């Protein structure tokens, strides 16, 4: 029975996870290493990589600051409207990315609410880098806050109050006491946030306008290549995203291993040896 279950699990994992991953890398290198490198160095591909890095480079730090602030606020203080704030943070999870993209079109697009004003002041948001960055920020903003919140709530206020009575200021308490206690959860939140920021397709697709070499991110560039029957080139770019996914998995395992060790330590500690 045990063998059967194990076999089912292995076959399932192989068919749905490992096989596709293998095919991505297999296809990417089908025409050799030089073609692979050439596909990545092609100007449109380089532009897509650059834009993806730009979007993630802006969205991740912003959501890091926002997520830490929100988790700290919700975890440590009581205030009216707290549950509303929690629901709002979850909103990007519950709304389809395409819909969130459309919201930006309705807001900043030519026929949109702010469109005419933006036109008059010669500010381009739709079908340009700012729109892509905005959509990426929106889609990825729950990750850090969601990872941190349970951790911060579980830790209570004791250590912060102790720091306060010892004369530490707000920032000192935050950087020396609160942050070190949640650093693994924070790192994991940032990694998830980054993976999503680089891999986001739906919302970005709506606001991008698919202008090659200008407003295509990596996922969009892959789609364009694929539709042009440049299968190998598409998979070469896709392999970069797959690598990112693998890296995320590795870091996630390390983070979880560390968190488990910390928990085990705390559990051992709470058993209260007598002396």
């Amino acid at each position, binding site marked *: 029975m045990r063998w059967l279950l194990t076999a089912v699990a292995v076959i399932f994992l192989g068919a749905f996870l490992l096989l596709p991953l293998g095919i991505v890398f297999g296809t990417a290198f089908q025409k050799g290493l030089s073609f692979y490198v050439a596909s990545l160095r092609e100007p449109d591909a380089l532009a897509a990589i650059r834009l993806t890095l730009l979007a993630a480079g802006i969205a991740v730090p912003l959501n890091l600051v926002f997520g830490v602030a929100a988790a700290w606020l919700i975890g440590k203080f009581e205030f009216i409207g707290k549950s509303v704030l929690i629901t709002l943070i979850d909103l990007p999870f519950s709304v389809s990315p395409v819909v969130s993209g459309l919201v930006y079109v309705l807001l900043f697009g030519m026929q949109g609410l702010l469109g005419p004003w933006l036109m008059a002041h010669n500010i381009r948001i739709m079908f340009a880098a700012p729109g892509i960055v905005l959509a990426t920020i929106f889609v990825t903003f729950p990750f850090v806050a969601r990872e941190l919140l349970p951790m911060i709530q579980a830790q209570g206020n004791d250590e912060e109050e*102790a720091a306060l*009575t010892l004369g530490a200021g707000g920032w000192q308490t935050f950087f*020396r006491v609160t942050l070190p206690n949640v650093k693994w959860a924070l790192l994991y939140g940032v990694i998830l946030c980054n993976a999503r920021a680089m891999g986001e397709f739906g919302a970005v697709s709506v606001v991008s306008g698919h202008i090659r070499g200008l407003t295509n991110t990596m996922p969009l560039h892959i789609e364009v290549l694929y539709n042009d029957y440049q299968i190998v080139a598409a998979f070469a770019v896709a392999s970069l995203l797959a690598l990112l996914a693998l890296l995320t998995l590795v870091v996630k395992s390390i983070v979880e291993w560390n968190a488990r060790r910390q928990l085990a*330590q705390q559990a*051992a*500690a709470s058993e209260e*040896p007598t002396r």
Partner: protein
Amino acid sequence: MSISVRNIRKNFGRFTALDDVSLEIPAGQLVALLGPSGSGKTTLLRIIAGLEFPDCGAVQFDGTDITDRTARERRVGFVFQHYALFRHMTVFENIAFGLRVRPREFRPSKEYVRAKVNELLRLIQLQNQANRYPSQLSGGQRQRVALARALAVEPGVLLLDEPFGSLDAKVRLELRRWLRQLHDEVHITSVFVTHDQDEALEVSDRVAVMNEGRIEQVGTPDEVYNQPATPFVYNFLGNVNLFHGRVDHDRTYIHEAPTGDLVFVRPHLLDIARHPGPPNSFRATTRHINAAGPLVKIEAVTDWGAPVHVEMSQERFRTLRLATGEIVFISPKEAAVFQKNGAA
């Protein structure tokens, strides 16, 4: 530093935690706030520390009003019930924390910090544990580190919230004697919260007994134990039998009916005899005898069905040769009588 608490009120929603509380703590004393859970003792301690702010009333240190100052500005040492040690720092770093977070112009040199921490490690007898993490220490060791951390900033007052609450009985006893000794050496004004009467009576110079957000009595351990001001204090400090009765010609008579005054008698102040003795003795039947320990504890039931607890010496027990189910006559040697409205 002396502490003065004036007419403090504090509500949490509709719950009244403190109801017009005033307390004077002279410099250098070790004072216990004693009361059952929910009596407001921890809230009072946190208000003195500046971790909680009163709805009205004032807190003074050495006659200076500090009600509006934050915990950071008050220079208090606070020891938390569950230690609240910084779990990612070593013992050394924990103790040094208060010195290292000072503004640059007041921050002591590295050498001073090291010397100070080592001095405190000697004081708490943990010199060899400086590089350990809190999770590697026992409960008693952690509590001592928490105390050293609070003392490192040389606070004007030391506040301890149930300092021995989460330790087992033996370590508790050792640690509270050690705390008393430490206080005699350092002489810092100290307030500690406890629900354990033995702890309060043994360690403190004075005890403030709290109940339902009010202070019932403040006095030396001897005063609150032997001259309780209210029925609550009598009841809370030590075991007690509660009867109805009256006093007539220096004798306390116990009534069956709930009339007259409230009579409190401690178990060791009840006399048991096999025959009717003084005119105020009453009949009872022994139900259970526990002869383990320095005192023999006897549970009996009066003719009208009220339970009575009596304690006597092993010697007296041996001469009486009591067994369970016997008819005995019990008379109070000494009692505290309160009128029904609660006044003594």
